[in-house]
């Protein structure tokens, strides 16, 4: 990776993640990345949990959803002169070591955006069987909505160049923002690649993250996205 770590802005959207966020952010700061925490109106003490950590902190006064939080983070990152923008989950599922590799693959492939994938060779994941099956079905549904077929359509870890980030005008606040990001890549003709990343499912992230039953809600949001975009 040739990029200066401080020019890489890692967006961490969070909602009631006070229990784990400090640990997640500390690991990112050790890598000397610029970190933008977007607190989506948490009711816990997220702000206090970040005390003493040199990060940009933004707070939505009302809970809008992960898609909206990512866009808010992107806008701040662009304003602060980011060369690369990364979206990273707050719950500790993602590994900070993957960021460097993803930016490196963006540079070497001259691509605009790289999507993390749990299902490419080399990626390690301990996702439960049912979750794997749902994710594999979701990629085809996402393809119908977005126009591009990824091996892992709902992975929140992605890195993009400043140019790609400036085109990410996300309007889907909730679960269908993944499909919209892919759709924006498709519409703007951005060059995309996938990169194998490691995801760790802990008891905490299983409890906090997207539940299997939420797939129905995601499908519903996707249909509405397709109708109303």
């Amino acid at each position, binding site marked *: 990776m040739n990029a200066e770590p401080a020019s890489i802005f890692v967006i961490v959207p969070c909602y009631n993640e006070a229990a784990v966020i400090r640990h997640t952010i500390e690991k990112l700061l050790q890598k000397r990345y610029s970190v933008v925490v977007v607190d989506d109106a948490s009711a816990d003490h997220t702000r206090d949990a970040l005390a003493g950590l040199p990060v*940009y902190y*933004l707070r939505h006064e009302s809970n809008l959803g992960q898609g*909206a939080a990512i866009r808010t983070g992107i806008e701040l990152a662009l304003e602060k002169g980011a060369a690369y923008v990364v979206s990273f989950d707050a719950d500790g599922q993602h590994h900070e070591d993957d960021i460097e590799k993803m930016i490196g693959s963006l540079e070497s492939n001259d691509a605009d955006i790289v999507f993390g994938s749990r299902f490419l060779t080399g990626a390690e994941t301990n996702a439960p069987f049912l979750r794997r099956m749902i994710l594999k079905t979701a990629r085809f549904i996402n393809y119908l909505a977005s126009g591009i077929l990824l091996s892992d359509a709902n992975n929140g870890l992605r890195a993009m160049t400043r140019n790609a980030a400036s085109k990410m005008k996300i309007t889907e606040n909730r679960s269908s923002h993944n499909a919209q990001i892919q759709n924006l890549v498709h519409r703007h003709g951005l060059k995309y690649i996938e990169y194998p990343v490691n995801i760790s499912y802990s008891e905490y992230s299983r409890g906090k993250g997207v539940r299997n039953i939420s797939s129905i809600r995601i499908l519903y949001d996707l249909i509405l996205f397709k109708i*109303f975009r």
Partner: protein
Amino acid sequence: MVPIQIVLISAVVFLAFYMYLRLRSGLVDAILIFLACGVAVFFIISPDTTTSLAQKLGVKRGINLVFYFITLFFFFLILKLYSRLRRLENKFTEMVRQNSLEKAEKLDKAEKSE
């Protein structure tokens, strides 16, 4: 004229005036509202007309035809309302976003953890 017809006609006329005054509609909207009101009053006064119209369209009873059209109308209304809701949500999101960007803070290393 039977009592129910009087009740229905009064309700339709009242609703038409209420919509006109409340929405402060333009001329085209006003014409459409009063046209719809006129059609409704006509079908209330002469309910058999709906049956003969229905039979021309291949539906047995007039009430079924009215039910089909009402279903379609409500579906259209839901889509329109949802579309308006999304526009409002987008505006609200943008306001919340601009507010959070204006108040963005760079936390300090010296700040004490609680």
